[in-house]
């Protein structure tokens, strides 16, 4: 810095030597009062007032305030003649101001322009009084006054006044700097807020007398907000935007103000100048709220578009899927359907419906309920069909069969599978179903059943025992009759090869198994007869025929066969054989008996005529007994009938005969012997006894009684009115021998004959026990060990 020698102009020390004017306190008070008011109200302009006051009070021709600004001094306020210099900037080192600040003390200069060429020259300054003022202890500027009149010279009083006013200048400067800092700070905030693309607003609550919030007033608005609302500071929210009440925004502001709980909400705001979506955050600020509001309309639109595109794509996929399903349903031979679960109206029904039920699909779909469908169902099946649909309505899957009256006159069998289709909430909204035409299956099944029944009946009637033997698995199936043939109850054992072998008579087992194995090995038919022995000891004769089938490797796979029970035929044959033997025996026996009778008849030594007569009578009686013995099974003979027959043979007068006794059926042997005995008695009565005498009478009485556990017959033959020839041949005759010897020998009975004075009395006691006979039916006697 160029040191300027200002000594020629510096007359500061002269002030002390100049006489002081009397202080004008009134003026001074007025000035301080004005400046104090100015400082309070308008700190920005207090420096100008200060300068103006000095000029107006006549202190100087010009007055001003220079503020230090780095190396420069700015003429912040200038009043008086030099006022045109306002705002000038002077380099501090080359100015009185700089000198004053440097000295930090007042300076009085005479003709300062002589020393400082950059000083204003018009009007020129005669004297310049300049005092520094400090701010926070640092020199901040100077207050100065210029006298353009050489006669006006500054004294001590001027200096004192100036120094006092300089303090105002300092205060004013401080106030100005503070105001500027505040302004800068506010600008910074505003700038920040303005930089946001969100609307930022600050409201304060407007309360009524009761303290209730009735409105909000704008306090702050950022640039973005201002661009939407315009200048709204200080205005009423409700007046500008009544829509906030409708959208609930006003209530949110109130709530946040009162509770302090922030809010973040989306609003679709279509009021006033707005039409869009907004995301608004609200926080409490003093007695009001601060809000940031983001316009999300575009974002919302983009989102909606995205959703629309997504749904469209999904719908497209669904449509394609439905198309495929529809093609599937339309091509199906089965009827696919969907009904509304509540109304049972068809919502979906494939064309096969018309084929199966004979009702056009469109017609069927017109009517809700089941009636259209049920009308076609055969009446007997309707309740059953309805019940199953109701089950599906109730949430159960079900399968059922029923008949349908087709208009073409031919009934169809239908199998329906129905199932519930739940909606999103789980309740049953629809019922799905598949109707299948099973007529052909049913018919085939029916025919199979009939065929099986036919076979079964034929097998049962024919008493065929069928077997089916899977040689590889060992699994065997028997018909019912086969079980019985083998001596088992039906289903009593699991059919098997082992069970079959076990049923065979031990004596026949080896041969039977060998026959089966031979048929398997030689590929011949298995034809074999064998006996099966049952647990009750009975023996059955079985004739079996069977055939093996073989696989491509030649291994036996299966054997099927049939067996019949030959037992009865075999027994009949056996019986026939026995009967033949028995017949031979009888014939030979009877011939032997006849020969014996001939001899015995001859013994009695009558005439030839008598011999023939006797023999004819006896052979006749013997012949009649043979009818009894060879007649029907269990053929007995009625006792009274025998008596009448034998008496009739003798041409008896029945008026002289008394027959008395219960009905008695005689077994064969007893009948035979008794017939011959009665024959002898009757012949005798005719020749010598009751019928040979005019007064002769015959009484035959018989009774039944039980002795030692056996039924006995007692027959009493009593002749009377006979004049018995005394001294008659007492030789034992044929009849007597028969009664007294043959009856005990053959019948284990008793025979007694007595000749009383008026006729014969004969008593026969015979046990009535039937002797077994080969001819009496039942089991034939067999001449064998088992017999």
């Amino acid at each position, binding site marked *: 810095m160029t040191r300027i020698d200002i000594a020629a102009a510096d007359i500061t020390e002269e002030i002390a030597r100049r006489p002081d004017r009397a202080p004008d306190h009134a003026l001074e008070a007025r000035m301080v009062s004005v400046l104090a008011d100015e400082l309070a109200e308008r700190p920005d302009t207090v420096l100008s007032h200060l300068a103006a006051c000095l000029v107006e009070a006549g202190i100087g021709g010009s007055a001003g305030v220079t503020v230090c600004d780095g190396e420069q001094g700015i003429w912040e306020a200038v009043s008086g003649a030099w006022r045109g210099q306002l705002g000038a900037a002077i380099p501090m080192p080359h100015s009185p101001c700089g000198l004053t600040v440097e000295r930090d003390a007042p300076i009085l200069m005479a003709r300062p322009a002589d020393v400082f060429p950059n000083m204003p020259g018009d009007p020129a300054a005669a004297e310049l009084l300049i005092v520094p003022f400090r701010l926070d202890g640092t020199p901040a500027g100077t207050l100065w006054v210029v006298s353009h009149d050489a006669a006006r010279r500054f004294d001590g009083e001027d200096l004192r006044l100036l120094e006092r006013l300089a303090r105002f200048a300092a205060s004013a400067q401080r106030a100005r700097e503070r105001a500027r800092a505040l302004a800068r700070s506010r600008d910074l905030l505003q700038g920040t807020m303005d930089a946001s693309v969100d609307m930022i607003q600050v409201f304060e609550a407007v309360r009524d007398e009761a303290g209730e919030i009735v409105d909000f007033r704008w306090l702050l608005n950022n640039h973005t907000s201002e661009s939407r609302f315009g200048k709204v500071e200080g205005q009423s929210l409700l007046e500008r935007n009544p829509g906030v009440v409708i959208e609930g925004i006003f209530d949110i502001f109130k709530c946040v103000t009162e509770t302090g709980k922030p809010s973040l909400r989306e609003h679709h705001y279509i009021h006033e100048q707005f039409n869009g979506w907004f995301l608004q955050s609200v926080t409490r600020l003093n007695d009001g709220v601060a809000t940031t509001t983001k316009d999300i309309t575009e974002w919302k639109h983009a989102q909606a578009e995205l959703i629309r595109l997504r749904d469209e794509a999904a719908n497209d996929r669904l449509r394609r899927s439905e198309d495929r399903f529809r093609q599937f349903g339309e091509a199906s031979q089965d009827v696919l359907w969907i009904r509304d679960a509540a109304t049972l109206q068809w919502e979906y029904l494939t064309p096969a419906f018309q084929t199966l039920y004979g009702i056009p699909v469109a017609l069927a779909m017109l009517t809700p309920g089941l009636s259209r469908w049920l009308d076609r169902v055969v009446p007997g099946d309707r309740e059953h069909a309805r019940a199953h649909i109701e089950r599906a309505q109730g949430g159960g899957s079900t399968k059922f069969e029923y008949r349908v009256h087709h208009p073409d006159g031919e009934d169809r069998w239908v199998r329906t599978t129905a199932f519930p289709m739940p909606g999103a909430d789980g309740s049953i909204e629809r019922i799905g179903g598949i109707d299948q035409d099973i007529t052909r299956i049913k018919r085939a099944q029916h025919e199979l059943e009939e065929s099986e029944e036919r076979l079964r009946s034929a097998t049962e009637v024919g008493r065929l025992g069928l077997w089916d033997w899977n040689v590889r698995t060992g699994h065997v199936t028997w018909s019912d009759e086969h079980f019985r043939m083998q001596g088992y109850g039906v289903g009593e054992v699991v059919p098997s090869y082992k069970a079959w072998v076990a049923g065979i008579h031990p004596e026949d087992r080896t041969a039977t198994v060998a026959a089966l194995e031979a048929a398997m090995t030689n590929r011949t038919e298995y034809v074999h007869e064998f006996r099966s022995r049952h647990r009750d000891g009975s023996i059955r004769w079985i004739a079996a025929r069977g055939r093996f089938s073989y696989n491509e490797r030649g291994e036996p796979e299966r054997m099927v066969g049939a067996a019949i029970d030959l037992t009865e035929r075999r027994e009949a044959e056996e019986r026939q054989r026995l009967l033949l033997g028995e017949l031979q025996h009888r014939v030979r026996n009877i011939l032997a008996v006849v020969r014996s009778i001939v001899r*015995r008849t001859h013994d009695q030594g009558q005439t030839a005529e008598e011999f023939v007569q006797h023999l004819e009578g006896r052979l006749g009686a013997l012949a009649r007994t043979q009818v009894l013995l060879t007649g029907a099974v269990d053929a007995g003979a009625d006792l009274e009938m025998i008596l009448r027959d034998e008496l009739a043979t003798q041409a008896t007068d029945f008026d002289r005969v008394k027959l008395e006794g219960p009905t008695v059926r005689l077994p064969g042997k007893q009948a035979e012997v008794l017939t011959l005995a009665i024959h002898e008695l009757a012949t005798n009565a005719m020749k010598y006894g009751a019928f040979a005498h005019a007064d002769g009478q015959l009484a035959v009485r018989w009774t039944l009684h039980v002795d030692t556990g056996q039924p006995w017959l007692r027959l009493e033959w009593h002749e009377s009115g006979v004049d018995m020839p005394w001294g008659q041949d007492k030789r034992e005759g044929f009849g007597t021998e028969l009664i007294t010897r043959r009856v005990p020998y053959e019948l284990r009975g008793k025979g007694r004959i007595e000749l009383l004075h008026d006729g014969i009395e004969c008593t026969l006691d015979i046990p009535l026990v039937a002797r077994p006979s080969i001819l009496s039916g039942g089991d034939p006697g067999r001449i064998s060990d088992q017999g």
Partner: protein
Amino acid sequence: MPQDRTQPAALDAVEVLIVEDEYYLADELRLIVEQAGGRVAGPFADAPSALAHLDRGRPACAVIDVNLGGTVSLEVADALVARAIPFMFLTGYDADALPIRFAGVERLEKPADLGAVLGKLRVLAGPPIDQAAAR
């Protein structure tokens, strides 16, 4: 009953068992045995009485029928076999109607000649030792 007196009594004291249920036939058999000098055991009309007799005594031989009281009974035949008593069947049955074990048993079919019956009984009873040596 006519008797063949030319035949010597060759059943001296020999006991012959007769089992026959027909009275007349039984009586005839009794007669020829007795006339031949033999003793008769029976005649018996049924198996139980014949078997009871076999428990008491031992006949030299027997003539039996197998049809007794309407049924075929082989109990007596078996009892005789068991006791080694020679016997013959006099029956109306064919040989093949009888069990095979009796195949070697003498048999005559009814109505048999009584002389033939007696001849067989003689053989069954066994000849006197001197007769056997003479053959």
